[in-house]
């Protein structure tokens, strides 16, 4: 549910956590990102930085400049002035990524896990398809690649995007690994709960994995111009589209990345309008699948 009034909770001497509700839906993330945007635009006194997540916003503040009580009052005023989430418009870049679904690299990671940790583990694409009532990995590919994804938050590892499907006909869910995997290839695409993530580097992980992209979303050497301001590609509010390609195409892009000639496929002129999005969703049959 969405709370009637947001909840303001302290985290030590310099953090406030604002919770908008206790479920995972886009609406709550729009509220969190809308407030983050408004705080930045209004330059609220004493706010050092904010970090939106699915249903909440963490605010880091400087107590020498504003007290917890004053910050709470200030943010409550700001939230009231924002009105309904329909009014929220956020700058939103759209990234297209060549993606190999059911690829050999994540298959190797899954097989390694099956051999060493849990022999009962079903092959992830088959497992996720079955749980979501899809006919098999082929339909999983169609459904998973059939939507734009909304970058709701970044975290866990620097630059790792937590994303949610924007098209309700493509919403699927998956439980996490138990116990977690000890390794996941860089660029792996996976799911846990209703969230899709891309692993910026090879790390342990708990998401079900079924695809891989050759394009870096994390670039410590800042070789590509998309990383001019940071070594992380994404910002909250960006969108991602996975474009299924073959292993040969993947390897071609991988070569371009290696020699520095790769050009990121990104659309940079759009704003995301919550009102437009909602009226589009209302026109859809949410029970349909691709």
């Amino acid at each position, binding site marked *: 549910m969405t709370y009637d009034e947001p909840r303001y909770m302290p985290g030590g001497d310099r953090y406030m956590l604002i919770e908008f509700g206790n479920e995972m839906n886009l609406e709550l993330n729009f509220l969190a990102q809308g407030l983050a945007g408004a705080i930045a635009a209004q330059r609220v006194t004493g706010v050092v930085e904010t*970090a939106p997540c699915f*249903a909440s916003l963490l605010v880091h503040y400087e107590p020498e400049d504003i007290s917890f009580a004053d910050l709470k009052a200030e943010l409550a005023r700001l939230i009231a002035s924002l009105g309904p989430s329909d009014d929220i418009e956020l700058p939103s870049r759209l990234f297209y990524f060549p993606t190999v679904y059911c690829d050999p690299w994540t298959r190797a990671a899954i097989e390694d896990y099956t051999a060493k940790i849990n022999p009962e583990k079903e092959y992830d694409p088959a497992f996720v398809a079955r749980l979501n009532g899809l006919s098999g990995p082929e339909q999983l590919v169609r459904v998973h690649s059939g939507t734009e994804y909304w970058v709701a938050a970044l975290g866990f*590892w620097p630059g790792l995007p937590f994303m949610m499907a924007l098209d309700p006909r493509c919403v699927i869910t998956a439980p996490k690994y138990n116990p977690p995997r000890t390794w996941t290839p860089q660029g792996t695409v996976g799911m846990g709960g209703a969230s899709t993530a891309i692993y910026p580097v090879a790390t342990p992980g708990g998401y079900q994995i079924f695809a891989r992209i050759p394009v870096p979303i994390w670039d410590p050497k800042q070789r590509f111009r998309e990383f001019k301001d940071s070594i992380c590609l994404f910002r909250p509010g960006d969108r991602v589209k996975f474009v299924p390609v073959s292993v040969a195409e993947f390897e071609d892009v991988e070569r371009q990345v290696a020699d520095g000639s790769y050009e990121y496929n990104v659309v940079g002129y759009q704003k995301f309008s919550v009102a437009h999005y909602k009226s589009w969703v209302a026109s859809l049959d949410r029970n349909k699948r691709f």
Partner: protein
Amino acid sequence: MIEVLKPGLETSVQDFPGRIGYWNQGFPPSGPMDSWSFRLANILVGNAPGAAGLEAQYIGPTLRFQRDTVIALTGADMGAKLDHAPVPLWRSVAVRAGQVLTMGAAKIGTRGYLAVAGGIATEPWLGSRSTFHQAGVGGMDGSALKIGHVIPVAAGAGIAGREVKHSARPPIRTDRRWDVEVCAGPNDDWIDAAGQARFLSADWKLSAKSNRTGFRLDGPEWTFAEKATNKPPEHGSLPSNIIDHGYPLGAINLAGQTPIILVNDGPSMGGFINPYTVPSAVFWKLGQSKPGEIYNFRQISVEDAQTMVRQRKAVCSEASIL
């Protein structure tokens, strides 16, 4: 320039307050864990309190100075020697070109700090020189010190023989037991009354599986309020699971039944509750404690935690120099 002859266990370049402003991309601030000792070291050698210096953990480095300078050591006592003469802590010391500083194992405390006049002048990354070695950024090529590194130092004129007043030094415990102040929240209401009382009365032992990302604690089982078990499924299956949310630095993060204090290099978000938070002015105690030592938590208000920060800032100033 300072040449690294031995790197120590994990010695890194840090500045204060570190890399601020990138929490929404998942970058922690890093910075010194005991910023009290760190700032005083800088003040002793005439630097700004936050200038970049070295943090040595458990076992300190061996360093050769390539030019005359002034240094100061604070924090843990690592039995430092300059050539063969012992170096006092909490005091600025003149060093001649070619002299070798040898730091050993921490005898009192855990993390030792070295400031050098002018400050370390590695290339800042995202506005900070602090090392976040897990991601390979900041400091010396994104890593802890290695043999053969040559650490650049900016020009600076320090004065030898300056000393920090006894009353201004952090009281590092030697009895293996620490009183650690905490603030309730953000998720204290997920723990039942018995669980809250248990947290505040129990002995919590610092686990060896602790590092600059998180301090794991061993102690009694946690019990939960009704909202921890009666919740929508997207929160996750464990009572301590919550829909992924932002983590305050210092949060006592409950991963299943294991509390982990998220410290300077910690994660920015995740799917576990944070019933309590260690306020920033108390981090120095974490930084100076060793695995196996005991924490007893004492609850204070947010306002008291903020007062502590102001008091600490006043102590980390020229007024504390004799």
